[in-house]
């Protein structure tokens, strides 16, 4: 009992509370918390290899992107709050998906004061390298609730090549 108390006291104040509030294992959530801390300290997610470096500044709007895949397709989701489907331009070359657009600042009439400006505006380009060849004719993009979702089916040859190797027990 005494040892436990000592450990808790030695820890940085607040750390244990932070970990408990997170879901899942306390160690992974602590690691996630640390990563987030470092990320925000070093200028947002600009450390990510897929984010354009030249942008860097906190003011420019850079959408966040999630990429997921199954055996048959790749899905790209980008958070684009405040944009209209007409403001978004999605293009595809053989191995890169490019999302372009502009988040326009709402024009408020005269006599408007800002208290707080946390949201960012401006034009952006994100190029996402695709890990495998995709069927460019069957790519679909939808925009709903401020989230763009692009579904890229893999080409038949890619699907064929990926073969599951059965692991046998002896």
């Amino acid at each position: 009992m005494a040892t436990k108390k000592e450990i808790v006291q030695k820890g940085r104040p607040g750390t244990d509370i932070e970990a408990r509030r997170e879901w899942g294992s306390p160690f992974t959530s602590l690691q996630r918390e640390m990563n987030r801390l470092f990320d925000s300290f070093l200028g947002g997610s600009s450390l990510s290899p897929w984010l354009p470096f030249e942008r860097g500044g906190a003011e420019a709007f850079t959408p966040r992107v999630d990429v997921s895949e199954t055996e048959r397709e790749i899905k790209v989701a980008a958070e684009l709050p405040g944009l209209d489907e007409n403001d978004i331009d999605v293009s595809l070359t053989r191995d890169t998906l490019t999302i372009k657009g502009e988040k326009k600042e709402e024009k408020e009439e005269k006599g408007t004061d800002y208290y707080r400006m946390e949201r960012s505006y401006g034009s952006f380009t994100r190029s996402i390298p695709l890990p495998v060849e995709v069927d460019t004719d069957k790519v679909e993009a939808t925009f709903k609730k401020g989230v763009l979702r692009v579904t890229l089916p893999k080409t038949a040859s890619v699907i064929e090549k990926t073969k599951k190797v059965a692991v046998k027990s002896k």
Partner: protein
Amino acid sequence: MADKTKAVQEKENIQVERTRSTNVYTPDVDILEKEDSIIVLADIPGASESTVDITLEKDVLSIYARVEPEVPEKHQLIHAEYGIGDYQRSFTISNEIDRDKIEATVKNGVLRLVLPKSKAVQTRKIAVQAG
């Protein structure tokens, strides 16, 4: 300047016991003041008008936006920059706001709250006449 910010202030550190197993994020907001109202804009991508709850209790205006995860089960995440989760943020508003006329709209993942100022505090311009 300091006088103005009294109308809407962020309420920090609200600890709420949660019943859903998702992460909760603080949405980015812009707060602007016009002559007759205060406007709060919040980025809540993934939430729609039917999943946003706005409550006003005493002086605390709380925004809670639920996000339904849309990554299908079979998909494996290979690159993640944002987490899926709900949005929550609370603000303390002063008596200068006309509470019965607060309006909220959600479009393209942006919540827009219009908080009209009550008649009593609206700035009136008084014309100065030559005597």
